[in-house]
C-alpha cells in the first residue's frame, strides 16, 4: 500500500497511524471522488521540489537544497496550500503537452533532394518583429524546464506573493540552521528583499505572451488557430491569457479545467471559429484524469491564496 501512494524515487518514512487515519477519513468523506493519479502526484511534487530548490539558491547559495527538501518532506511543505495551485497547473499543462507530443503523427522522412524543392528552413534569415516576439515566447517557455527536460516553474512566472511567502519560509528554515551565526542570519532579511526586487523585475510567459499578442494585431486569430492545429498549447495559453489580461498560470488552469461547452466563450477574445476549436476540445477530452473547475478551487489560486 505504501508503494501505491508514494511518488517514485522518494524514500518516505514509515507512515504514522494518525496520517493513515486522516487519509482514510478523507477518503470515506468522499469515496466516489476521483483522486490524484500517481503521475499527477509525482509531477506536482517534482515541480514543487525544483521550485523550492531554485528559490533557496536565489536566497542564499549556501543553503543545502537536499537538506532543506528532506526536512520539508518529513514535516510537510509550510507553503503547501499556496504551491498546490501553481504546481498542479504546471503539471497538468505538462501532461497535456506530453499527450499531444505522443499522439503526433510520425514525421516524414526527408532526403536532401526532397528538401531542396520544398520548404528548407531559412537558417540565418533576419527576424521579423513577429518572429522575434515568438522566439522570446519560446525562450520564456523553455525556461520552465530543468536541465533534464522535467517540468519546472520559472521564477519569473511565479506570483509575487507566493514567491515572497516561499522566500520567507525558506529564510525561516535557514534561520534555524544558522542559529550560531548571527552575522549570516542577519543578512537573510536583506537577501529576501533583494530576491523579491529581482523577481519583480523579471519577465516570464505572461509578459512574453502579451508582447507577442500585441505585435500580432489583426493576425491574432490566425496565430491562435495555427497554435491549436499544431498543438502548440503554450502559445495558445499565452495568447488567451494576454487577450483576457490574465496571468499565464491562471489561464493555463482555466483552460485545462474548462468544461468543453465553455471553451468557445473562454476563447472568444481570440475570435476563433468552432472548427478551429475542435482539435483543442478533442485534445482536452482525451487527457486522462482531467479535473474540471469548480467554485471551491479559488482558495488555491495565486490571487486567492490565504496569506500566512
Amino acid at each position, binding site marked *: 500500500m505504501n508503494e501505491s501512494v508514494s511518488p517514485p524515487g522518494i524514500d518516505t518514512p514509515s507512515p504514522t497511524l494518525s496520517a493513515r487515519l486522516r487519509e482514510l477519513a478523507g477518503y470515506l468523506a468522499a469515496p466516489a471522488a476521483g483522486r490524484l493519479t500517481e503521475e499527477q502526484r*509525482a*509531477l506536482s511534487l*517534482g515541480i514543487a521540489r525544483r521550485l523550492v530548490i531554485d528559490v533557496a539558491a536565489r536566497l542564499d547559495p549556501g543553503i543545502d537544497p537536499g537538506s532543506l527538501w528532506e526536512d520539508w518532506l518529513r514535516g510537510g511543505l509550510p507553503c503547501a496550500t499556496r504551491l498546490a495551485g501553481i504546481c498542479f497547473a504546471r503539471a497538468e499543462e*505538462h501532461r497535456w503537452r*506530453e499527450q*499531444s*507530443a*505522443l*499522439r*503526433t*503523427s*510520425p*514525421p*516524414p*522522412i*526527408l*532526403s*536532401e533532394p526532397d*528538401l531542396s524543392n520544398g520548404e*528548407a*528552413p*531559412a*537558417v*540565418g*534569415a533576419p527576424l521579423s518583429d513577429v518572429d*522575434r516576439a515568438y*522566439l*522570446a515566447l*519560446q*525562450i520564456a*517557455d*523553455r*525556461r520552465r*524546464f*530543468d*536541465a*533534464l*527536460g*522535467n*517540468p519546472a516553474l520559472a521564477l519569473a512566472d511565479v506570483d509575487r506573493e507566493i514567491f515572497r511567502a516561499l522566500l520567507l519560509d525558506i529564510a525561516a528554515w535557514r534561520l534555524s540552521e544558522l542559529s550560531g551565526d548571527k552575522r549570516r542570519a542577519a543578512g537573510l532579511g536583506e537577501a529576501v528583499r533583494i530576491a523579491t526586487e529581482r523577481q519583480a523585475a523579471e519577465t516570464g510567459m505572461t509578459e512574453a505572451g502579451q508582447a507577442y499578442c500585441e505585435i500580432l494585431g489583426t493576425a491574432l486569430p490566425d496565430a491562435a488557430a495555427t497554435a491549436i*492545429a*499544431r*498543438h*502548440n498549447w503554450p502559445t495558445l495559453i499565452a495568447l488567451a491569457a494576454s487577450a483576457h489580461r490574465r496571468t499565464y498560470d491562471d489561464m493555463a488552469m482555466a483552460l485545462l479545467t474548462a468544461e468543453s461547452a465553455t471553451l468557445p466563450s473562454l476563447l472568444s477574445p481570440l475570435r476563433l471559429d468552432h472548427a478551429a476549436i475542435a*482539435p483543442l476540445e*478533442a485534445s482536452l477530452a482525451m487527457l486522462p484524469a482531467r479535473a474540471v473547475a469548480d467554485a471551491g478551487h479559488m482558495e488555491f489560486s495565486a490571487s486567492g491564496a490565504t496569506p500566512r
Partner: protein
Amino acid sequence: MSERIIRGRVDRAGALISADTPLLRLQQRAGSGLEKPLALPHLARLVALAQRLHRDISRPLYAADDHSDIHALVRIVPDADGASLEISDWRTRPVTLPQVPAIADGAAVPQSWTWECDPQLRLVALRAGSDAPAIPDGWEGRSLSELFELQPDEDGRFPVLRGLARQSRFESQRVHAAGMAMNLSGEAQFDATGRFTGFRGLAAVAEGEAIVEPKAAGTLVDPAFGSLPLSDPQFGRRIDGALRGPLSRIIATAETISGQFDGPIRADYARYAGDIAHAGRHLLGLVDDLADLQNIERPGFKAARDEIDLGDLARRAVGLLGMKAEEKGIRIDAPRTDDRAPATGEFRRVLQVLLNLLGNAIRYSPESSQIWIRVDREDDRAMVTVADQGQGIDADQQAVVFEKFERLGRTDSGGSGLGLYIARRLARAMDGDLTVDSAPGQGARFTLSLPARDVA
C-alpha cells in the same frame, strides 16, 4: 486523428509504386521503399484480398513502426494494373509511454548541457547539468553555429547540417564552445502537423578535454583592432555568423546572374554581376580570415598532432589550385610522388598554410612563369618551400610581411592582409615556423618547417 486522406498505389506484383509521405515513411521504416514489395503485412493481405475479390474493400488497418502503433481505415480499390489505397483516420499511439524526462532518451548526464533550437537553429533553451561547466551568457536566440563553433568530422562533413537537411537526429557533431571541445547530438522535433520545429539535444564536454577558462573580454585588447568591439570574441562570432549567410547569398545570386543561368542578359550587366560575386568572395575570405584569427588567438588554442607527409600535402594543395595557376599560364613544379617529408602537425591546418602560400605565389607571379614546391629535411625539421618568380620582397618588407593586415602597399582586392599572419601563427602553434627568403626581382621563397617524424 486526421481527416486527411493518405493515398498510395500498388502494382500487380504487390510493389508500392507511389505513396503519400506517412505511408511511404512507414514502408521505409519497415525496411522497404518505393518500387519495392509492400512491407506492411496487414495492408499487403488486404490488398491481396481486394484483388482476389475484384471489388473495393474498406477495413481497419493495423500497422506499427519502431515507436508507434498505427490504427487507420483503409479503402482498397483494385483494378487491372494493381490497386489504389486510400487511408483515413490515421491515428498513432506510442508503443510504450515514455517517462517524463524526454531529453535524448534520458542520456543527459550532470556534466552536459541540454539545448533546444527552433527550425532556423536559433537557441531557445540552454541549460547546464548540475556538474556541467557554466553556460555562456547571452545565448538566448543566438544561432546554434554562433554559440557552438562547428568542426567538420573526418569526412569533412557537419552532422548537424546533415540532420537539418534531413530533419532527423544527429550525433557526434564536434564543436568548440566557451573554450571547450564538446560533442553535440540532437533529436529532430515536430509538431502535431508534422512540421519540423527544431532540435533538442545534448552538448557534452569531449572526453579528456581540459576546460579552458575563457579570458575576460576586457583583457583581450588587440593592437590591430584597438578598442573596437571586434576584440570581444562574442562580438566577433556574432559578426562572423551575421555576415557569412548574407554574403553567401549575395555571391550565389551574383554568380547566377553572371552565369546567365536564368536566361540571357546584357553582357555588361553580366560583367557587373561577376564583379559583385568577386567582391563578395573577397569579403567572405576576409570573414573566414577574421574567424580564423579569432580562433587562433583564443587562449588555449592548440593544433592537433597528426602524422602528416608534407610532400603529400603539397601535392594536394597543387591539385586544389592547379586550375587557378593554369588560368595565368603558370606552371607548378610540385614534389614528385616519391618525395616524402614525414612531419607532425594538424593535417587541415598545414593544408591551409600551403594553400595560402601557393595562392599568394600564383596571385603575385607574372603570367607564364613557374612556381616550385620542394620538400626537404634538416635535422629534426621537415620543410616545404614554395618559391615563385614574382617581383620579390625587399629586406624591409620581409620584416613586416607576417604582420596583421600587412599588404606591402598593395591596394587591390587580392587579400585581407591576414593570410600570412595566420599562417605563421598556425605554424608556430604546431611547434614549427614560417619564414621568407627573397630579394627584389628574384621572387620569394616561403618555407614552412615542422617537427620531422621518423618513419620506420
